[in-house]
């Protein structure tokens, strides 16, 4: 039986509290970028591994929640850089298709949803980031501003421009 030092026990307690409070939010943040539950789970684990390694800096962090979301965001972006657009999970769009419609309409809807996801990936970085982070329901505009280092007005402007650009592109494509 291995004895864990007292400082480690305190860290475990602190970490367990952090995991319980923020893991769901971090999972959604990572999933909004990666669209894969497995990879999003790996990102959440990596976030807390980093917290474990740098927990001495926790006392200097003013907003732990924003700090954790930034770590998850950066880790997810780093993972995404290794993947091509075609390597994203194609089944995510299929899971969103309504099961109550006819088969031919379901296929058409799935194609449209895949096109939306592809066009989101082609948006400018700032607009795409704001659009994806806005899907995390725990994050308001102020939170988005703190995570991305922008003002609330800038976040609202980016969100509007991104959505308009996405709609225009889809209309032109369709």
């Amino acid at each position, binding site marked *: 039986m291995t004895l864990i030092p007292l400082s480690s026990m305190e860290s475990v307690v602190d970490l367990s509290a952090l995991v319980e409070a923020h*893991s769901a939010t971090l999972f959604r943040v990572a999933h909004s970028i990666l669209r894969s539950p497995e990879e999003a789970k790996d990102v959440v684990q990596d976030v807390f591994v980093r917290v474990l390694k740098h927990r001495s800096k926790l006392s200097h962090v003013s907003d732990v929640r924003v700090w954790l979301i930034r770590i998850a965001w950066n880790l997810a972006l780093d993972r995404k850089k290794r993947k091509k657009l075609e390597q994203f999970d194609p089944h995510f769009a299929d899971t969103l298709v309504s099961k109550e419609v006819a088969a031919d309409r379901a296929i058409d809807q799935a194609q449209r949803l895949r096109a939306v996801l592809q066009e989101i990936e082609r948006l400018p970085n700032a607009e795409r980031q704001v659009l994806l982070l806005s899907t995390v329901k725990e994050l308001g505009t102020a939170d988005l501003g703190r995570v991305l280092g922008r003002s609330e007005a800038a976040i609202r402007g980016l969100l509007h421009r991104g959505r308009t650009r996405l709609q225009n592109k889809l209309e032109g494509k369709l």
Partner: protein
Amino acid sequence: MSREQTRQDIDHILAGLSSVETPPDLEREVMAHLATIMREEPLQEKTGPRAMRWSRPRWFVVLPVSSFAALVLFLALHLSRSGPATPTFKPVDSTSVSKVLPGTSAPALREKVSPSLRIKAAPPKTPPRRQARLTLASASLSYPAPPAPLTDEEKLLAHIAYKADPVQVAALDRLAIEAKEQTEREDFHRFFNGGNE
């Protein structure tokens, strides 16, 4: 496709991303993963910043220590090389040996010195420098090979060569030598006393 349809599709995607369900065992898996990491790296998590501080190389500590180690190594090598580590063989004649140990002939010296030297050089626990000195001394005494004991004929010849008359050496016939000596004595007396007689 209408603009409304496109807007609905965008909302559908964003809502789908927003409503993604977190795995029910996410927290447990994360904690298990962290526990595994903490078991694997107990020192790192225990010491934290102190461990990071000590892991950095400090030039003002490393430089003097490495300089001192290099000095000690140099001195050790220099002292070990200054001694006669490798014996060199030089031809030594018996006269030089006699000069080193006056009053002792080469065979006697070999008989007296060599066994003792052999005994001293034999133990393996002799310090390297002393052993090298002993090896060199024994090598000097045994090269060239000492002369063998003289036979009886050689002793007789040596006795004649160093103590008898050279004419005697040449004239081995004892009777002829005595006759010649007798003739010479008579000639001597005749020359000096002949006029008086």
